[in-house]
C-alpha cells in the first residue's frame, strides 16, 4: 500500500518533523511505500522530502495521504485536487490571542490555520489527534470520524552524553531550574522568570534559571524578556539560546526541576523528556499538559508565581516526596515505550486505512441560535448565566455552549448534558478556569464550534476571551450583551462596538427579563428582515 505524508514544513529536530519521520519509518517497516511531501524544508532534510506540488500528479485512487496540520499551510486546494484516501493528523494550533501584542504575523497565521481546519473537513475521510484535547476540537469542527493517536517519542535520542565543560560549570551546588523551548509568547517564559524570582527570593538564594531555546532579541517578545529580567532583578538567569544535544543533556543532568508555564501545548514533548531524564516536572496545566503528564509530576492549576515557587521549594527540600514524584514519572515514561506505542499507532492507523474509525456524535452545525455563555457551568450565579437561562427558556431551539468545569478532562462527547436544568454543550477551556474575579479563559474548541456553525450567535459577555476571539468571525450573524458593571477593558468594549454596532446590548442587572426581551425582539426582527430580503 502507498501511504504518504504531507506537511507544510519539514524541519530538523522539531516535534512535528520527528513525528513525521517516525511514522514514515513505522509505515515502511510494515511493508508500505511511504514518502514525505512538504511545501518547504530545512536543508538538513533535503534528502528525506519531495515537493508537495508533485503530490496531486503522483497520487492515485489507491494512495493514502496523512495530512499533518498545525499552522497555516495554504495547501487546501492541493489536497482537494489530490486523489485517494486522505486522513488528517491534527497537532493543534496555538490560539492567536497568545501572540497578540507581540507577533502580528503569527496572529494572522494562527487564525488562517483554524479556518483551514474547517476547510479541510470535506476533503478528508477521518482525522487523528495526538491528545483528547485536540480531538475535542476536531469533533467541534464537525469531523465525524475522529480518533486519538498515541504520540511516539524516540527515547534513544535523549541518551546523548552531556557536554562535560557545561556540566562542570552548572554542577556547582546551585539549584538549577530548567525550561526548554523557543521563547515565543505562548510559552509564557515571562511567567517562568516570575516564578523563579519568587523561588530565589523566598526559598533558595543559591539558585539559577536555565532557559534553553532560541530567543530573538530583535523580536518584541525577546526584548520584553530581557527587559523583564532587569526589572525583576533575580540573579543567575542564563538565556542559553539554541543548544546542542550534548549541551541540552548537560542542562538536564544538572537540573533540580523542570518548570513550564506554557499556556498552550498540543502534546508537550519536553515534559516527557524531563521525566525520562529523571528531572521532576512542575507544569501549569493548560491545554493538553495534564494529559501529557498523565498524573505524574506536579501539574498546577494555579499560575500565581508564589504558589508555583512553593512546589519548586518542596521538591528541593523534601527528598522523600521528590523520590515519589520521580518514581511516578518513571512509570509514566514506561507506559509510553516505543513497542507499546507502535502497536497502538498500528491499530489506530489500521482503522483509518480500512474506514473503521470510531464515529463521533458531532455538534449539529445549524441550530438557529447559538448561546455562547462561557461561564454558565463554572459561574452559574453570574448575571450572564442567569440571562443565558432566561434566554434558553424563551428560545428552546437554541444551543447553549459553555466551558467545562474546572479540572474536568477533555472528552470527545461534547453534549448535550443537563446543567442547571438546561441542555448544555461543554468545551474544554485552553487554560484552567480561575476563581471568580479572574477573567474566563478562551476555548479553542468552543470557538471552532461557533465558527463551524451557521446560526445566529449571541455572545453573552462580550469581554470574555471567547467572545473577543469570535467577534470578527461571526460578522452580521452576531449579537452581544455587555455587562458594564463587570467590564472595564476599553479595547474589548471598542472591539465589540466596532463589530456588532447596534446588535450590542447592555445588560440590565436589575431586570434580566428586560434584557432577554430586548434580545429576543432583536433576533426576531433580524429573522423577519432576512425573510423580506429574500
Amino acid at each position, binding site marked *: 500500500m502507498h501511504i504518504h505524508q504531507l506537511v507544510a514544513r519539514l524541519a530538523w529536530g522539531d516535534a512535528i518533523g520527528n513525528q513525521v519521520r517516525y511514522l514514515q519509518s513505522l509505515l515502511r517497516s510494515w511493508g508500505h511505500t511511504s514518502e514525505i511531501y512538504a511545501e518547504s524544508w530545512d536543508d538538513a532534510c533535503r534528502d528525506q522530502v519531495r515537493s508537495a506540488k508533485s503530490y496531486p500528479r503522483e497520487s492515485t485512487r489507491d494512495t493514502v495521504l496523512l495530512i499533518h496540520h498545525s499552522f497555516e499551510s495554504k495547501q487546501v486546494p492541493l489536497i482537494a485536487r489530490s486523489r485517494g484516501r486522505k486522513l488528517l493528523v491534527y497537532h493543534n494550533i496555538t490560539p492567536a490571542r497568545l501572540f*497578540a*501584542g*507581540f507577533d*502580528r*504575523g503569527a*496572529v494572522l497565521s494562527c487564525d488562517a490555520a483554524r479556518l483551514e481546519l474547517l476547510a479541510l473537513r470535506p476533503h478528508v475521510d477521518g482525522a487523528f489527534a495526538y491528545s483528547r484535547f485536540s480531538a475535542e476540537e476536531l469533533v467541534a469542527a464537525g469531523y465525524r470520524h475522529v480518533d486519538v493517536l498515541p504520540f511516539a517519542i524516540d527515547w534513544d535520542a535523549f541518551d546523548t552524553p552531556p557536554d562535560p565543560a557545561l556540566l562542570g560549570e552548572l554542577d556547582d551546588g546551585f539549584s538549577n531550574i530548567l525550561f526548554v523551548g523557543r521563547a515565543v509568547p505562548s510559552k509564557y517564559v*515571562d511567567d517562568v522568570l*516570575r516564578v523563579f*524570582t*519568587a523561588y530565589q*527570593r*523566598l*526559598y533558595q538564594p543559591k539558585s539559577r534559571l536555565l532557559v534553553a531555546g532560541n530567543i530573538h532579541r*530583535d*523580536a*518584541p517578545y525577546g*526584548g*520584553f524578556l*530581557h*527587559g*523583564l529580567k*532587569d*526589572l*525583576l*532583578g533575580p540573579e543567575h538567569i542564563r538565556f542559553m539560546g539554541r543548544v546542542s544535544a550534548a549541551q541540552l543533556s548537560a542542562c538536564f543532568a544538572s537540573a533540580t526541576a523542570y518548570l513550564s508555564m506554557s499556556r498552550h501545548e498540543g502534546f508537550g514533548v519536553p515534559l516527557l523528556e524531563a521525566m525520562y531524564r529523571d528531572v521532576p516536572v512542575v507544569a501549569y*496545566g493548560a491545554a493538553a499538559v*495534564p494529559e501529557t*503528564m498523565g*498524573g*505524574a*509530576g*506536579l*501539574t*498546577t*492549576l*494555579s499560575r500565581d*508565581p*508564589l*504558589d508555583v515557587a*512553593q*512546589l519548586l*521549594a*518542596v521538591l528541593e*527540600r*523534601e527528598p522523600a*516526596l521528590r523520590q*515519589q*514524584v520521580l*518514581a*511516578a514519572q518513571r512509570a509514566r515514561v514506561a507506559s509510553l515505550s516505543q513497542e507499546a506505542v507502535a502497536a497502538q499507532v498500528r491499530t489506530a492507523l489500521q482503522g483509518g486505512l480500512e474506514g473503521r474509525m470510531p464515529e463521533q456524535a458531532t455538534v449539529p452545525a445549524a441550530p438557529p441560535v447559538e448561546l455562547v455563555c462561557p461561564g454558565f457551568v463554572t459561574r452559574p450565579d453570574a448575571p450572564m448565566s442567569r440571562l443565558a437561562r432566561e434566554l434558553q427558556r424563551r428560545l428552546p431551539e437554541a444551543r447553549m455552549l459553555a466551558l467545562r468545569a474546572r*479540572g474536568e478532562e477533555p472528552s470527545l462527547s461534547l453534549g448535550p448534558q443537563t446543567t442547571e436544568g438546561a441542555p448544555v454543550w461543554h468545551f474544554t477551556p485552553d487554560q484552567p478556569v480561575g476563581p471568580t474575579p479572574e477573567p474566563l479563559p478562551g476555548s479553542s474548541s468552543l470557538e471552532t464550534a461557533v465558527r463551524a456553525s451557521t446560526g445566529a450567535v449571541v455572545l453573552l459577555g462580550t469581554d470574555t476571551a471567547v467572545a473577543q476571539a469570535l467577534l470578527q468571525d461571526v460578522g452580521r450573524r452576531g449579537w452581544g450583551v455587555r455587562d458594564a458593571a463587570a467590564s472595564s*477593558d476599553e*479595547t474589548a468594549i471598542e472591539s465589540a462596538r466596532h463589530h456588532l454596532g447596534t446588535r450590542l446590548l447592555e445588560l440590565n442587572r436589575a431586570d434580566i427579563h428586560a434584557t432577554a426581551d430586548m434580545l429576543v425582539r432583536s433576533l426576531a426582527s433580524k429573522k423577519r428582515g432576512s425573510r423580506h430580503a429574500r
Partner: protein
Amino acid sequence: MHAEDLLTLDPTAQAVAAATERLPEPTTAMRDTLRRTLTASLRAPVAGLWPALLLEARAKADVRYVEPATSHRPVVGPVLVFAKRTFRGAFQPFINEVLRRQVHFNEAILDALTVVIENQREHARSQALWRRELDARLKQLEKDDPGASSH
C-alpha cells in the same frame, strides 16, 4: 498551595499541599515587596493596531491597484478616463502578475518595520518600568533607614 489546585496522583495532591505548608513562612514585608515587583512586571494588553507611522505606507503597499481614473478636462477628459479604464480592465491580470513580487516585497518590508517599531516600543516600556521600580525601591530604602538620606 491548595490541594484543589494540583493534579497529581503519586504523591497525592493533599500530600504535596501539606508539604508546602511545612515551608518556612516568608516575612510579610518580603512577600509584599515581591508581590509589588511581580505586579509591576505584568504587561498591559496592547491593542493590535498597526503603528500610526506605517498606516500610509500600508495603504500604498498593494501597487497592483490604483485610484479610479478621473479627469477635470471638459471634452478630452471622458475619453481619457474611458481609455484608462479600458486599458486597466484588459490588462489588470497581466499587471497583477508583473507586480506580484513587488507586493510581496512591500508586505515583507512593512512586517519587518512593524517588528522594529514594536521592539523599540517594548524597550521604551521596559526602561520606564525599570526606572519606576528603581524609584520605588529607593523610596523604600529611605523609608527603612531615614538617617541614610541626611548623610
